[in-house]
């Protein structure tokens, strides 16, 4: 059943492609709780993980799922959970724990309409800022937005790689449209997939300091049960992993958490630009909406309008450079979103060139259509 998947053009849902991406990246542990519209990820992994020697478990809630994911990662397995809005609220507690203890893990949030139970079967992009700031305290995090079945595969692999390399939780923001759209893709050979593993210590155990800084800002990570007995705590800790209340140590620790991501910007921050070379009006979009935007931009070009698209792939850390460049170049930027303007607020924050920022918000559970965006482009041209 599985081997025929390789090298064959397959019709896959976004959720299924995430599963294939996770397995290709080396994910061998998954804990989750049933929730629409993310359940297909659990269902497929419950079949596939044991086939590759991995482990699937359905926990009692999303808090528990996230706890188990962190536990498994500490024991050395690449781990993941997938959920949607209400469950994403619950994972925030332990997501913060993963941030402070620098445990690699991947969290998929298939966005549906909110708040609360909201619109379980409809699309939304209402969790954008929550994915950045959902858990309490200042913390670094990486958020990637998928827009197609191919993305779901490749960005899941990338999410695991970034997570392992920077020892930080990575959130994959999907949405109901991407999750359930079926498209064809060919799953690449395993040796064509670039896989990054966490760096493990090579010093004798008695020399090992689990949170010591190095030139990467990312400490080597030992797994439980490999001879490197150490302490892991959600309290602010010193470089040996033990709780500290020394202002100097606290400051150094928290700065390192943030700096390791800053150092990685060039690798972490991804975006795609289309027809931006001579664009006078740009559309800045992400997730499923970027597909509507792409079509709108093409249609605008057919109308002779110099329109371009910036598709944000990494939402956080915020792709300041590319957005700044687009805003400086264009007289107007249209930001279509399936929320009340969460990303347009961020974009406005970096707008130093006085470019007109035009929000487009749709919150009725439906995807923005290309025609709606085209109309906006025509109105500002």
């Amino acid at each position: 059943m599985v081997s025929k998947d390789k090298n064959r053009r397959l019709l896959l849902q976004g959720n299924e492609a995430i599963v294939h991406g996770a397995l290709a990246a080396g994910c061998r542990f998954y804990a989750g709780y049933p929730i629409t519209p993310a359940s297909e990820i659990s269902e497929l992994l419950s079949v596939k993980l044991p086939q590759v020697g991995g482990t699937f478990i359905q926990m009692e809630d999303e808090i528990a799922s996230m706890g188990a994911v962190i536990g498994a990662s500490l024991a050395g397995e690449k781990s993941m959970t997938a959920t949607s809005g209400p469950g994403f609220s619950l994972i925030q507690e332990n997501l913060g724990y993963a941030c402070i203890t620098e445990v690699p893990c991947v969290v998929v949030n298939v966005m549906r309409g909110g708040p609360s139970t909201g619109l379980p079967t409809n699309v939304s992009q209402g969790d954008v800022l929550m994915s950045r700031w959902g858990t309490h305290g200042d913390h670094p995090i990486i958020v990637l937005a998928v827009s197609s079945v191919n993305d779901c595969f490749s960005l899941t692999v990338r999410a695991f790689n970034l997570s392992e390399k920077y020892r930080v939780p990575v959130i994959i923001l999907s949405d109901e449209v991407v999750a359930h759209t079926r498209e064809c893709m060919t799953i690449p050979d395993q040796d064509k997939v670039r896989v990054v593993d966490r760096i493990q210590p090579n010093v004798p155990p008695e020399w090992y300091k689990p949170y010591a800084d190095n030139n990467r800002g990312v400490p080597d990570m030992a797994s439980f049960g490999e001879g490197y007995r150490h302490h892991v705590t959600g309290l602010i800790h010193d470089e040996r992993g033990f709780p500290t209340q020394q202002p100097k140590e606290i400051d150094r620790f928290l700065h390192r958490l943030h700096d390791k991501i800053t150092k990685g910007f060039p690798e972490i921050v991804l975006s795609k630009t289309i027809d931006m070379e001579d664009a006078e009006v740009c559309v800045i979009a992400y997730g499923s909406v970027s597909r509507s935007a792409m079509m709108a931009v093409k249609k605008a070009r057919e109308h002779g309008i110099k329109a371009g698209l910036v598709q944000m792939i990494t939402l956080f850390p915020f792709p300041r450079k590319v957005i700044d460049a687009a805003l400086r170049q264009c007289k107007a930027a249209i930001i279509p979103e399936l929320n009340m303007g969460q990303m347009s607020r961020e974009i406005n924050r970096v707008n130093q060139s006085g470019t007109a920022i035009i929000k487009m918000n749709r919150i009725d559970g439906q995807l923005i259509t290309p025609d709606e965006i085209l109309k906006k482009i025509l109105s500002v041209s």
Partner: protein
Amino acid sequence: MVVEAEVIRQEYLRHDKKFPHVWCPGCGNGIVLGSLLRAIHALELPKDDVVVASGIGCSSRLPTYIDFNTLHTTHGRALTFATGVKLAKPRLKVITVMGDGDATAIGGNHFIHAARRNINITAIIINNNTYGMTGGQYSPTTPYGDKSTTSLYGHVEHAFSIAELAVTAGASFVARGTVYHASHLDRMLEQAIAKRGFSVVEIVSNCHVQHGRRNKLGGAVKMINSFKESAVPIAKAKKMSPEDMQDKFTIGVLCDVDKPISTEEYNRIKQEACKIDDYEETHKRKETKVKRHEE
């Protein structure tokens, strides 16, 4: 015995790193720590293969001081992290240390589900009838009528019986001990850790600083001594009338059964699923690359 104690102190404590500890003088947590180390020592478990996870609270600081793979998690969630560790590396011996509020209030759902699942983990629950670290608020085991910083008029709710709860939820092994009966506690912990399946030991302990002081139960010595009177071995309790058992509780092994363990059952599923085709050839789990330094 003295020599043995010194061996255990040298071998298992992070004496060069994390002392003094945070506990108040006279706290029962120290007795539990000693008992746990004696049990692990008696079972001759390699330190590298032991994981001790805890939640949040006074009791949950315990793993900080002992030289194993230690994991101080979020409030109530110790068992969820422990479940992940155990499933990812079943060869590890996973023990959790929790308090009464930690395990049965905020972590109550995780507790009953870990028991239902019968995952091969030992849960040690230190029950001091209060939230000590946050200032003595009432917990799920605060007795009816007692005073706490959030029940100064007297507590109007009823207490959980942790060990009985664990039996009903499906744990394979459940025992109760007290910090007065230290050598009995050694045996209970030893049996629990050796047990295959989900094992629970509820340890009745004292918080003379919070619960004891507000309810005029005396200092540490008086409180711990009182367990001598109130704890009744299970066999003896069976012969006693309900009136005689008023304000008393049983100690000993409440339940010891054998049933399929989910970790092992899942292993069987893996073996069968792997046979479905050759997919695992390319996705084979990589052998861990860590070199051991054991010279």
